[in-house]
């Protein structure tokens, strides 16, 4: 009887161990691949009626990246998991769309809502089954050269899910740009266009490209910055995207 109890206990421990191993394997993506030419993934959205759209800025960004010999891809209305999975193999990742009042969230939409969040702190989005955390990666994001989050509060600390720009840097991305406040939609789209133009055509640094784009966004909108002046660059502000390459 004692031997049988011991066998049952051992079997339970064994199953628990296998379960934990499976969870670990499933939650850690396979190691990153470096494509030639380096890959750039860009996301924008036509949110439902009454919401703010951000298309076709992913397409514009990908065109500019193509000019720099990246393989630029534009994804309109993507869900979160494919973007999160793809991220590990990207040299450039850009997102323009909705964020959150408190930061820490990229809101994806492809008919249903899904999210990429900064850091798992014991809180998850309610009513969403498709959500991913940057913090789930170990060192697979090291290859990202530049990440750009043109979304409200992407550089703001959220007590439940962290800070996207800081977590991106912690996870090895060379340079990340985000915003500490709400940003106006027309300004965001104008900023995005000029920012990628500056990076690709003039080969300017991320810092110069962003500051120039900030002024252009204001001129396009009769002197209204509408939050677009509140960009933050974490990492190397002197980074340029030419020649096409992965991050270090």
């Amino acid at each position, binding site marked *: 009887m004692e031997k049988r109890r011991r066998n049952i206990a051992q079997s339970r421990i064994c199953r628990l161990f296998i379960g934990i191993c499976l969870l670990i394997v499933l939650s850690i993506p396979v190691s990153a691949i470096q494509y030639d030419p380096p890959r750039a993934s860009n996301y924008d959205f036509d949110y439902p009626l009454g919401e703010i759209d951000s298309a076709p800025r992913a397409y514009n960004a990908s065109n500019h990246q193509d000019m720099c010999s990246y393989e630029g891809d534009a994804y309109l209305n993507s869900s979160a998991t494919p973007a999160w999975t793809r991220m590990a193999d990207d040299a450039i990742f850009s997102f323009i769309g909705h964020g959150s009042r408190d930061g820490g969230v990229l809101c994806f939409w492809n008919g249903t809502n899904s999210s990429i969040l900064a850091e798992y702190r014991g809180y998850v989005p309610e009513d969403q089954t498709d959500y991913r955390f940057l913090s789930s990666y170990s060192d697979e994001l090291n290859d990202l050269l530049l990440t750009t989050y043109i979304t409200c509060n992407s550089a703001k600390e959220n007590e439940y899910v962290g800070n996207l720009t800081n977590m991106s840097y912690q996870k090895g991305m060379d340079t990340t740009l985000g915003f500490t406040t709400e940003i106006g939609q027309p300004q965001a789209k104008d900023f995005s266009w000029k920012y990628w133009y500056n990076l690709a055509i003039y080969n300017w640094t991320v810092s110069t490209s962003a500051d120039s784009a900030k002024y252009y966004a*204001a001129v396009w909108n*009769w002197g209204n910055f509408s939050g677009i002046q509140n960009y933050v660059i974490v990492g190397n502000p002197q980074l340029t995207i030419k020649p096409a390459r992965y991050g270090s």
Partner: protein
Amino acid sequence: MSVVSIGTSACINDTQAVNSVSQFLEKDNLIVQDISEYQINSDSYYAIITEDGEFLVNSENSKVELSIFIPNMNNNSEISIPMDEAYNISKGYLAQYYTELGVEDLKLTETYLEQHGDAGSEYTFVWREVIDGVTTPNYAIVGLNPHTGNIVGYVGIYRTITIPIDSHPAITRNDAVDIAKKAIDGVSISSVNPELKILIDQNGDQNEIWEICIDGTSEKPSMSFVSVKTGETFPVYNPMRYFVKVDVDTGLTLDVLRVW
């Protein structure tokens, strides 16, 4: 030298545009790295890149309306210059370069000390012309390096006002607010700011309108976080901002723009 044309109908040629930059910088023999053309709202521009930075020359009036002095962005991590000193420097710059209006004719509407993380900081000042309570399209922006005091960016837009300015239009401030509130839904309103404005549309035509800025939060939570330990939920009501444009004579809603 590359030329990116975005459908402009230039009145001056690129050589004249370069001359404008040369005069603006008081510098002969500019080394031009790139010239492209832009259409911004109803205006066409030459964008000229030199070692000094980026300059937008309005092809109608040949004025340099945007300057970004790229070398002046360097060494901007430390904030050595206090805000009031930065303000005085930028005011002096404005007096020198925004000559269509005197500084006394302008109202300082926005002041920022921008913190760009590892990319340093920048002071920004925005002035606007307001005549009898009506905001015109004329404005200037000066950006300043908070360590060196050098000018980083300058915008100076001046357009002659061609329509009569009406400070007391048929549609009153209260009427405009009521109309704007009816034009939006799903917002728990926290503030409403109406402003009489002269706008220039894409065709270059001027119109006086009420522009009502409505701030608030979404009535329904945009998302909620749930604690995996306790099951407690934390709803997030995202901020919402709308701009509603209302005709000053008829009260017609001309445009409803959700900004965030």
